[in-house]
Structure formats: C-alpha cells, structure tokens
C-alpha cells in the first residue's frame, strides 16, 4: 500500500516508540520514509512544534532526586495538574524549602505547596506563546478576571524586580519586533528550510545501539493518553468526564480494558474489579471489555495510573507507553462502569457503511409517501467518516452551545446522559471499525412528529424537525418512536451552581424537567444568519451558517449547508458516491448524510 500511495508518510509514535524497542522502531520508520522519498513537501522540519523549552520525563525524575536530596529551596509549580507515571515526584515536593503553587484549579499536586497563588484563566490574562518554532503568538484577555487573581506574568515579573503590570512587561519585549504583530496577534519568522540528509555511518551506529535486547513478555500493558484529560491534567473539568471516551464509551471513572476473548479465557467479566501491580505499586481498576483490542493486551489511560510508575527510557528521556510483565487478578469485587453504549456490534443492520462500494445508489426512495418539497432551504449535514477520528470535540461544543446539562455518574449508570450528539463506535464482524457521530437526523418523514400528542415537534418548511420546548408535556412517545433514539428527556431539573452558570449560552433556552430536547442543527445560528440575509434581501449563502459541531471539528469532518443550493459543499458531498444515510430503508428520509471511508 505504501508503494502505491502518491505521498506515502510513515509516522511512528505513542505506544510504538514508547516501549523498550521504541528507538529502533523510530529509526526504522525514518529509514522507511527515507527510502520512500518525497519527504520534502509532506513534512515541514523547520516549523516543528516548539518543545525546545520543555523538559522530559527524565528531567522530571531528576527534579525528584534533587528535591529529595534537599537541593531545592524555592520551587514554583505552575499549572501542573498531573504527574502521572512519576509517583515519586509529588511527595518529594514536601522536601523543598518553600514550594509555591501558581494555579487556577486546586488539584492534589498543589496540596503540598506552602503557599498557593491563584492565577486567572488563560482567557483572562495577557501572555504569549510559541506553539511552533518561529511562530510567536500574543495572548490577549477576553474579559476581566472573575475572581481575585493575579496573572502569573504579573507575579513573576514583580518577583524578578521588574514592573508590576504583565501587559507592559510583555509589550516591552514585543515592541522591537517588526510591525504588524499588534493587528495580526502573532509574529512569524520563517526559519531556514531544513533538508533531511541521511548519514549512513551514524545511522548504523544508532541502529546497533538501539536494537532491543530482550524478547517482549506475553502480557502487555499499553498506557494510552486519555482522550479527554490527556494525563489527567484537566480532570477538574466536569464536562470532560460527562463526555465518554469514544472507543469504550465509558464516561466516569478510570478502567482497564482488555479484549472480550481474553477476558473469557481468563474467566473475567465486565465490571470485575481487578488488581495489578508489581511490587509496591498496586492498581485497582474495574474491567471494561473492549472490542478491537488484540488478545492479551491490557490498556489503561494515563490518568488511571494512580501510583504506578512508568519506566523512563534513558536515551530519549520519555516515559514508556508500554509495560510488559504486568499481571491482573480479580479481587472478587465489582465496580459498575457507566458504559453509554449498549453494544458496539451492529453487523448486518445497515448502520455502518460496511464494505460499501463507491457509487452506492442512495437516492432511491423507501417510502410511499410523496417526495418532500422545500422552498428555499433544506438544511443538511454531511459527516465524513474517513476524517472523523472520534475526538468528541463536536460533542463538547454541542454541550456548551446548547446549555446541555451535565448529569453526573449516578445518572450515567442509569443511562440518562443528555448528549444531543454522540460518537458511536462500531466493531462489526468482517468490517473495519467505524466511529459514527449520531445526532437527530432531521428526518423528512420523522416518526417522532406523528406521535407527539400536543404538536411539540413538527416539521418546518426548511426540512428541520423542530422541537418546541414550551409545548412539550413529556409523554416521551417521540423518543420511543425514533429509530435513532436521538432525543433526550430532562428527567430532573438540572442546575448549575455559580460560577458555572456563566457558561450558559443566552441564545438557547434552558429546558425544565419533563421536556424533551434534541439537536436542531443549531437553529439559533440559522435564525441569526437568516435575519442578516433578510436585512440584505437575499438568501443565506453557503458557509454563513456553521453549527457548533461543524465549527469545532478539527478534522473538518462535518459540513453543514443547504441541500437545495446546487453550489453548496454539502450538496456536492451528499451526492458523492460515498454518501449513505443510516437506516434509510425505514423511509425516514434523514437529512444527515454520512460519507463512508474511502475504499480502493
């Protein structure tokens, strides 16, 4: 496949390089890429991510040693919310003479500081950053600090004997830069291009020293970054636990995953509380059966490491992402995990594209009802499953845009989360795994509309299935009748204690208990765009309306637009050979088109 690709790219990282043979893997990947050639325009070596000023895990371990040796006097800890994999460092903080914490969240690391200086949120203070080499970005506050905090830059510049104000400190250093940085907000220098060249002798020497010595042990523990909190650093944010991990669909609580076949062989079942450990470090985690994992590979997210120590590779300074020789035993107890999916196997149901060939004929109608007619707009979404990697940023955006309540772990165990948009993983037999973002399909012939006794849901002339919150009496027949189960019911009144109530979007109403809610393609944004277009006596143009999910998707997998506009992007995508609709044989005529993965 690499040989036939137009622009082959070999990437090695994560678990592949975070194991004892990792350096060898990285070298091989580089060599492979070199032999394939054509690196130049695929990879930009000059503008690499700016990790130059970051320390490695080895540096962190060394800090721990220096602390224990009482070599450190005053220690500033700024926004370090996780020391996963380095259990020895946090206790060592006590050994510093005067540990000072600068933070916005009070996490366990900060409990050990002698004094804690609250700093504002990044959006409330001046600052700058260098995300890539040569790209300097200015950070400007968006609003005044809500609480009594002082920016980190203020504190440090005062202590350094300089000015008190962070802003003037910053501007003094930016002013000498060539013009344009104030209007643009950034300053970019183009570093000299780097042309990679192979040095055979050094390569051979590196290869010889990098070859892995021992055979890997059969039981592997893969320590993967948590998709939601990375290494646990943003654990304090409730929304990140409310949204499930897309592959396992577990929302609250750490867990350990293994394939169902391995669990069956070991006599383990889901929610068994397992204990693992080598020596002093024991880890107790409930078990989750994860389809798609190879046999005998156990996986835990980094934020579940607890006191487990990750070995550090002396050559690279990084912590290992794979550990061998770890055993897991059942404690005999159970801890129920909130798993939001019922099953991840939809084989034969036509929900996933399967091995759909291109040019699938998706426009045949599956209903005897007359074709729908819309006047100016038929709003539709096209979701590209080839681009979607399940990151769930769209889910988070939807929560924030639409004031969706966070229900908490007890309600999740009951199966009562309120996500309007969710990532549904499918591991079907004989098919590649699929991550399917599912939301209200705005069906042309929606089963929910006919059964609502009070007309709280009806079809508007733009193809949207509209939900009128103040008319809903809460019979819940609409969700019962929805084959996609896209609707959510407010089982209780969900409140947000201050200051989280500041997060509410004033353009979207909050729903009281007893009312059904669901996605309506961010109708508030559609309305705003239509109002603007009406003022200008024209129709809404393609690209003027972007729902929150489409706006946030980093891969650009979600496209929104007017299906009646022949020039719109969504029109082109919906008519492409890859497009299909979920359960369209039920005659619902959904307005959400999914694009299957590109298959040769």
């Amino acid at each position, binding site marked *: 496949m690499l040989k036939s690709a137009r622009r082959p790219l070999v990437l090695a990282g994560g678990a592949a390089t975070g194991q004892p043979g990792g350096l060898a893997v990285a070298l091989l990947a580089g060599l492979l890429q070199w032999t394939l050639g054509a690196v130049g325009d695929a990879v930009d070596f000059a503008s690499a991510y700016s990790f130059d000023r970051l320390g490695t895990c080895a540096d962190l371990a060394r800090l721990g040693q220096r602390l224990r040796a009482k070599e450190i006097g005053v220690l500033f800890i700024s926004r370090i919310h996780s020391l996963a994999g380095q259990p020895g460092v946090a206790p060592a903080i006590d050994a510093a003479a005067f540990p000072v914490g600068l933070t916005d969240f009070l996490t366990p690391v900060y409990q050990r500081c002698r004094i804690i200086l609250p700093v504002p949120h990044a959006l409330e203070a001046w600052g700058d950053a260098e995300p890539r080499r040569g790209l300097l970005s200015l950070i400007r506050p968006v609003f005044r600090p809500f609480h009594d905090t002082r920016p980190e830059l203020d504190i440090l510049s005062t202590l350094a004997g300089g000015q008190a104000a962070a802003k003037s400190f910053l501007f003094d250093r930016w002013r000498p830069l060539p013009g344009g940085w104030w209007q643009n907000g950034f300053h970019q220098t183009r570093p000299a291009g780097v042309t990679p060249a192979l040095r055979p002798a050094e390569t051979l020497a590196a290869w010889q020293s990098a070859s892995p010595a021992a055979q890997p042990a059969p039981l592997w523990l893969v320590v993967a970054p948590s998709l939601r909190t990375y290494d646990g650093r943003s654990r304090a944010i409730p929304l990140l636990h409310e949204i499930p991990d897309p592959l396992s*669909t577990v929302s609250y609580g750490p867990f350990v995953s293994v394939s169902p076949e391995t669990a069956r062989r070991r006599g383990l079942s889901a929610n068994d509380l397992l204990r693992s450990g080598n020596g002093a470090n024991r880890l107790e985690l409930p078990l989750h059966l994860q389809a798609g994992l190879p046999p005998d590979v156990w996986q835990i997210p980094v934020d579940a490491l607890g006191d487990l120590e990750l070995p550090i590779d002396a050559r690279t300074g990084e912590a290992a992402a794979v550990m061998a020789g770890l055993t897991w035993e059942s404690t005999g107890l159970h801890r129920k995990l909130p798993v939001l*999916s*019922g*099953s*991840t*196997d*939809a084989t*034969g*149901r036509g*929900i996933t594209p399967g091995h759909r060939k291109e040019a699938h004929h998706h426009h045949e109608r599956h209903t005897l009802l007359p074709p729908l007619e819309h006047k100016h707009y038929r709003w539709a979404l096209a979701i590209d499953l080839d681009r979607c990697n399940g990151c769930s940023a769209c889910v988070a955006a939807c929560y924030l845009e639409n004031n969706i309540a966070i229900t908490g772990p007890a*309600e999740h165990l*009951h*199966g*009562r*989360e309120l996500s309007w948009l*969710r990532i*549904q993983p*499918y591991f079907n037999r004989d098919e590649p795994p699929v991550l399917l973002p*599912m939301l209200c399909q705005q069906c042309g012939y929606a*089963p929910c509309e*006919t*059964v*609502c*006794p*009070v*007309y709280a849901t009806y079809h508007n002339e733009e193809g949207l299935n509209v939900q009128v919150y103040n*008319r*809903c*009496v*809460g*019979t*819940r*027949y609409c*969700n*019962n*009748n929805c*084959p*996609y*189960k896209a609707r*959510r*019911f*407010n*089982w*209780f*009144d969900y409140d947000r204690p201050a200051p989280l109530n500041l997060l509410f979007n004033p353009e979207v109403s909050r729903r*009281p*208990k*007893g*009312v*059904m809610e669901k996605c309506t393609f961010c109708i508030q944004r559609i309305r705003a765009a239509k109002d603007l277009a009406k003022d200008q006596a024209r129709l809404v143009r393609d690209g003027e309306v972007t729902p929150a999910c489409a706006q946030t998707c980093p891969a650009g997998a979600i496209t929104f637009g007017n299906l009646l506009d022949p020039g719109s992007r969504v029109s082109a995508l919906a008519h492409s050979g890859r497009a299909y609709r979920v*359960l369209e044989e*039920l005659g619902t005529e959904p307005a959400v088109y999914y694009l299957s993965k590109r298959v040769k």
Partner: protein
Amino acid sequence: MSLGTYYQNLETDVLAAMRKPSTLYWVALAFSGALFAMGMGLWGYQIMTGIGASGKMHPVGWALYITNFVFWVGIAHSGTLISAVLFLFRARFRSSFNRSAEAMTVIAVMTAGLFPLIHLGRVWFFYWLMPYPNQRHLWVNFRSPLVWDVFAVSTYFTVSLIFFYTGLIPDLAVARRHATGLKRWVYRVLSLGWEGKPNQWNHYNQLYMFLAAFATPLVISVHSVVSWDFAMSVIPGWHTTIFAPYFVAGAIFSGTGMVITLVVPMRKILGLEKYITIDHFESIAKILLFTSLIVSYAYIVEFALAYYSGNVFETAHFSYRLLGDYRYFYWMMLLCNSLLPLTLFFKPLRRNLKYLFILSIFVNIGMWLERFVIIITALAHDYDPYNWGNFAPTLVDVGIDIGSFGMFFMLFLIFTKMLPVLSITEVKEHAE
C-alpha cells in the same frame, strides 16, 4: 317456595351485604386505602422531583406506568363484555356477575385513567392533550395514538358510567325501600323516582339495550386504540398489525381473570352462594379458556412472522424477548397465559372454585407481565445496538403501581357496601 318469597329473600340477602361493615372489611379498606395514599404520595414526590424518580431511562421511556395503564384498561373491558356483550347474546348466566363486572369496569377505567397523567413529564399541562378553544389556535395532534387514547378512554368511561348507572336504577329503588335515614334520602335521589311502573320498565329495557349495543363496539375499539399506542410506532416488537385483535382478546382474558378474583371471595363473604352458582363460574371459565387460546395463537403468530420475515431487526428483537435480559418474565408470562389455562379443558377443574381463584391470580400476573414484556423489551432492544439499555424499576415505580391496586380494591370495597353487588332486577327476571 313461591316467587314472592324468593324475591323477598333475594332482596334481603343482597341488601344484607350493605349492612354495617365487619372488622375484616374495615381492615381491608384501611389497608387498600393506605396503599392508595402511598401511591398518591409517591406521585406527588415524582411531580416535585421529576420523572427521574422512576426507573425510566434512555431508551426505555415507557415502563411500569404504561404497563399499568394497558393492564387496567384491559381489565375494564371484560366487565363490559359480561354486562353488555353477553346481554346482547342473551346469556342468562351473566346476570349474577354483571353488576360486579360493571363496577369493576368503571373503577378500572378510573384507575387506568390516572396513569397517562402519572407518566407525563409535565402533568400540570395535561389539559393540552384535549382540544379546547384557545387564543393561539392550537389543536392537539389528531394523528397521535395518545390523542386517540384520550378520546377512547374518556368515551369508554362516560358510556360505562352511564350504562352502570342506568342498570342500577331499579336496584337503587329496592335499596331505597329497605333503607332508613340519610341513606334512604341518597338512594331516593339516585333512583330518580323509579316506581316500577310498566312504562318505566319499557323505557328501562329499551335504554339498557341501546346502551349495551353502544358499549359493545367500544370493547373492540377502545382496546384496539390502546394497542395502537404501540402498533403505530416503527420499532420492532411494536410495529405489527396483530396488536388490535391480540390486545382485545388479551383484555377480555385478563378481565375475566379479575372478575373471578373478585367474585369468588365476594360470593363467600357476602353469602351469595345461592345466586352465583358453580355453573355460572364454569361459563366464565370457558370464556377464560377461549381467550387464552386466542392470546396463545397471537404469540405463535408473532414469533412465526419474525422468524420467516428474514428482517434482521425483527428476528433479533424476538430472540431478545425469548432469550434476552427479560427472558424470565417472558417465560413466566407464557406459563401463566398459555399453559396454565389449558388445564381448564378438564371439567372438574372448571368447577373447582379454589382452583379457579388461584388460576385467576396467575392470569392477572401473566397478563401484567405480557404488557411489561411488550413495552420494555421493544424499547430496550431496537434498531441501533448503541442505544440498547435496560430498565430497572425504582421504589417510586413500584409504589405507584401498588398504589393503583390499592385504589382499585379500595373503590371496589366501597362499591360492595354502597351499592347492591348483584343485579337484583336481573336475577329476579331469570328466576324461574
């Protein structure tokens, strides 16, 4: 014994039941009243906190409350069958049951009518389910089976109540004759000045016949409409045309069971063995057996259709019903509804009142479980495997359901003391 003496004894015996209640009665009334009060209290709690107090979740949005709704409406139908349909067929044996059966109908419909309110998310807006003139020109959605329910059940309640009351008038006159004091005044008002004149009897018979004819199609239509709450939906397990006849047969089946449950002890306690005989019970038992066979046929048809449909959703759903998380409920249901009633093919068992009573309890349980299984398995296991999820009841669910049983029995006990439990008029008519 002369006819006159027979009539005298009949009246005395039946009205004796309305004498001052025994301690057992008070205990039973207090107990059922307490259960009802508990149910109401829990409902109040649910209104304050939200539907989340019950065990419902995504995807199972309907659970025990709708199960109870269908269950109680089903029970109501059997009463109308016995009083109206059997009247039109001139079945003599119904005369000893029909008053209690009609009372059971009215009380069951009242109990059933509470549940659409209980399951509403915003019950304080329940009146939006009715088409009333309003300044915003809002109508209800007439395409929704829930609105059909509103019309069907309220029609059924109105007609049943009028039918019940009409049949009571001559008996209220009898009660008036034997009563004293305040009771006499009440019965006098309620009996509307009935004097038993020939033209009054003429009118009575015509009206009763008309109302019986009016109520008869309601037995079919109302439970068909209730079954269409499910049949009109798209999900596998609900979307099937067999539901209307299946539910109507099931309703008569469960209602007949409830009639036996109520009348066997009532006959013993009130000493009415002379008027409600074993022959009467055997006839009711035959109806029970017949409707059980229809229900069993419906089960077979459902499975056969799912199997040879080749539709992955149908076959998967029915496999789930038989072998999935709720399989024990399903097997219990099969035992109670299909297998146990087959024993009624044996005449000695048909004429054994103790056996009939116990069997009727099982029938009630089985029919309640049937509604439970239909509603919950269909919602728990439909098209998209991601959405599958299980329902487990909470104390609020169970408490309100038990409260409904408390309400039913409390009202029935009140009926036995306030109104003649036998249709004196009709028993007199058939005493030859």
